[in-house]
Every structure is written in C-alpha cells, then in structure tokens.
C-alpha cells in the first residue's frame, strides 16, 4: 500500500535534486489532470523516478485518472500537517515501478496548502525523485498560485480556443511575476505550451485556432499537440494514463511531448485530419 524505502540518490559528490514541473492552465476542463498523469507516466516510462502530486484540494481527481483511488489512505494535506509521513502517503503505480502518485484531500480546501509545508514536502520529494509533477487546480487563486510557486518548469495546458488561450496568457504572466524563481530573481521558470484536445478537422473548418495561431499569441515554445481522441476519455474512465495505450494517437503524442521535454527533437504529428483507410471505413470506427 505505501512505499517502503526512499532512496537518497547521490552520484559521486553531486547531489541530484529533482525538478518540479507544474501543469497549469488558468481555465478548467482543458485536460490538466489527464496531461499531468500522462506526462508523469511518460517520464517514468523513459526511466525517470517520477511522482505526480494532486494540488486540487477538495476536488481530488488524479487518483481516479491514475486508477489508484481505492488505495488512498493518507494524503498531501496529512503530510503537510505532519499527520503522516511521506512514504505513508505515496502510492506506487502498479504498472511502472518508477511512478508514484501523491493524492490530495477531498475533504479539505485550498487553504490547507500552506506554503512552508508545501515547500518542506517538495524539498523532501526532490531527494528521491527526478521529476515532481504538480497537477494544478484551475483558477488563479491560492491553490493554483501555490502549485506554481515552487516550479522549475511549467507546462501550460491550452485548448485551441480563445478563452483558454487568454487564460494561459494570464498564467504565463503570473509565472513570470509570482513564482519563487521570479521573487528571488533566479533563472525564470521554463514555460512550455501543450496544446490539448486538438482537432485538425475543426481547425480546417475554422472552428478552432490552429497551432500556429496559438503559438503566435502565447509566444512560448511548443512542447506538443495532443489530438482530440476518444482514447483519452476511455483512459480516464479506466484509470489508465493514456500513454500506456500504445494504439492511441493521444498517447503517442504525449510520449512525443515527454521526449521533447527531455530535450529530443521530434516532428509534430497528428496535425492533419486523419484519413480513414478503406478498411476502417468498411469495418468500423477510426
């Protein structure tokens, strides 16, 4: 149920501190939690020790998306308050040994996210994980601000529509002014754009903003484009991060995004309307 051993990793004399990645958007319903689960699982699949934390106190969902809702005993807030130890609250993923889930409380609210407590927990996590993926709540209030405050990198999850793009723009501004890195004049938070629920067909009809439009408005590097896909919904409902579905275009797009995050060059895929093969047209749905 809980994790037994936390390994303090050292390589020679150099202490390896984990990186904090926040997935944030401002707007709700754009796919933050789905993306946090997929990116975290993708990083684990690439061999990195990764933990994904749910910052959406009171609206806990990450455990469902990760399929571990029946294994939650202690949560993030318990650990912040010192009521539980970190390794009592961390849940090890059943599909990947390097992946851990850190659920939050459903009964508390965002005020329970005390900044010094969050900092202490993150510092402790940095000692044993390569990546700490923070799933931010929507909005720009305390919960979202706390989730972004300690970030080293941010992945801005955006849908190709004007309201989502504007909210993302606001969040990018906040990252540049309200993060710890901004306050202490450190190197700024590395900001990446992840365009989710992209439908090339609807872009073609002019119902959605195209990749280039969004890039032009937000002017931050593009990490990936996730095509709108039924496999995402299926993955959510079955509690399996979509990257574990090798057939899914969305899953492959997330793996591409993870590869780019790790510094690899990958061509953008799934930007053209899918051409149905004759076989598929005859025998079923794409």
């Amino acid at each position, binding site marked *: 149920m809980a994790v037994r051993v936390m390994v303090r990793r050292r390589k020679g004399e150099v202490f390896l501190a984990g990186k904090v990645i926040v997935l944030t958007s401002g707007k709700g319903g754009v796919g933050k939690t789905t993306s946090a689960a997929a990116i975290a699982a993708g990083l684990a699949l690439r061999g990195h020790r990764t933990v994904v934390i749910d910052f959406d106190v009171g609206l806990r969902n990450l455990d469902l998306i990760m399929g571990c809702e029946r294994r939650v005993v202690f949560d993030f807030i318990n650990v912040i308050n010192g009521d539980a130890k970190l390794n009592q609250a961390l849940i090890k993923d059943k599909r990947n040994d390097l992946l851990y889930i850190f659920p939050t409380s459903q009964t508390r609210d965002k005020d329970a996210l005390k900044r010094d407590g969050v900092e202490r927990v993150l510092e402790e996590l940095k000692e044993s994980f390569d990546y700490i993926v923070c799933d931010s709540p929507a909005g720009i209030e305390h919960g979202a601000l706390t989730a972004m405050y300690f970030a080293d990198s941010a992945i801005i999850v955006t849908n190709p529509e004007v309201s989502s793009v*504007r*909210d993302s*723009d*606001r969040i*990018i*501004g*906040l990252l*540049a*002014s309200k993060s710890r890195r901004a306050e202490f004049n450190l190197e700024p938070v590395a900001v990446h754009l992840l365009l989710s629920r992209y439908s090339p067909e609807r872009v073609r009809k002019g119902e959605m903003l195209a990749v280039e439009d969004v890039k032009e*408005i937000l*002017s931050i590097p593009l990490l990936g484009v996730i095509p709108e896909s039924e496999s995402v919904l299926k993955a959510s409902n079955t509690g399996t991060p979509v990257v574990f579905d090798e057939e899914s275009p969305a899953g492959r797009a997330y793996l591409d995004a993870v590869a780019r995050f790790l510094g690899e060059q990958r061509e953008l895929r799934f930007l053209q309307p899918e051409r149905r093969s004759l076989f598929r047209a005859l025998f079923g749905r794409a």
Partner: protein
Amino acid sequence: MAGNLVQGAVFTVMVVRAGMLRDPAFEPELAEQIRRSPRFFLNAPVVLDLKAAAEFTHESEFAEAREILRRHTLSLIGVQNASPAQLQTAAGAGLASFAPNAPQPSRSSPRESPRTALSLPSAAAKTRLVTQPVRSGTQIYARGADLVVTAAVSPGAEIIADGNIHVYGPLRGRALAGAGGDVDARIFCSRLEAELVSIAGHYLVSEQLPPEQQGFPVQIALVDDRLTVTRN
C-alpha cells in the same frame, strides 16, 4: 550693448555638502586643510550643495552656514541642488543659484507630476522599455515617461504612459497614452489589434477602430479632440 555689460567667465568654486556642516569633524578638518594651504582658501567662494537636505527652508539656517564658513575665511555665495522652496529662501538670503537646481514651480507645466520634476531636474524623462511580452492581466505604467514595448501586448493587458506609447509587435490589449493629460501624446504600434486605445482620456474601443486599419502598423493621435488612426 548688453554684450559689453555682461561678460562671461569661468571660476573654480568649492562645493560643501549641506550634511557636512552638521558633522562635528567638519570644522577641525577644514581648519587643518586651510592651515596647509591658507592662500588657496583665503576668501574663497563656496557653493552649498543641498542635495537630499530637507532643512534650509529658513534664512536663519543659511546665515548660520555662512557664519561657520566665515570663521574659516570662506565666503558662501550660492546653492545648488536646491528644491524650489530652498531656492526661494536662499535668494532671500542673498545667495545665487548654481545649476543643477530643481525647476521653479512656476516654470514647470502643471501637468507634470511633481515627483518627475524633482527627481529628474534637467535631463529628459527616461523612456520605460519592456522587452518581454505583456501578458493578459498585467498592467504597466510608465510614469512621466514614454513606454516602448518590443514584444506583443496580449488581450487583457494594459499599458499606460504619461508620454507616448510604442509597441514593436502586435498591440492586442489596451493602450493609454498621455495618461497625465498630455494631448500631444501618440500611440504607435506595428500591428493594431487593440481592445482599446486612449490618448489624454479620449478613447476608442475595438469596434470603433477603423476596420481597414486593423492588423496594420499605425499611429494614433488626438486631432481636434478626436482620435485619428493613420497607417504608418
């Protein structure tokens, strides 16, 4: 004839900072210096530097300073870096004004904020330069200055300047130039997609902006109390 009456000449004048007069070590040190080169200091003229000195608003204070310097054979002849109030008192005490001094209130335009007038005595107001995109929800105010943005201004962002506004990128948010009431201020942008533009309180919202100018490099000026948009 005036050329014959008034002749220009350049002199070397000692400057004494006002704060030094209060320092107990000042007089002994001055006496020591004068003892070493008495000829140089005999009846030498002195200008009192009032930079950051809050006092010297009464003639008696100037008289006291004059007396201290007199004791060391120095002659107080004027002040510099004086506030308008100090300058007036100094004039009453028969002291000349040496540049730089803060401008007299009567000479500065009433629209200039007093802070600008005091902190930037003779130099032109510095332009505020922004090189990062101005994101939605951000507000930037160039007080008493021009504003230059070399990146995009997003929808929902607000840029304000008492002077002119230049945007070398798409202007998609709000831009308010001449915020202090300067009707001669202008807005320049390399792509007009603004939500609102305003000069000295006169404004146009997006749907009032001429559609044929949208997306083009333009300048916006106030002509006969009307905002006019012209293609650059």
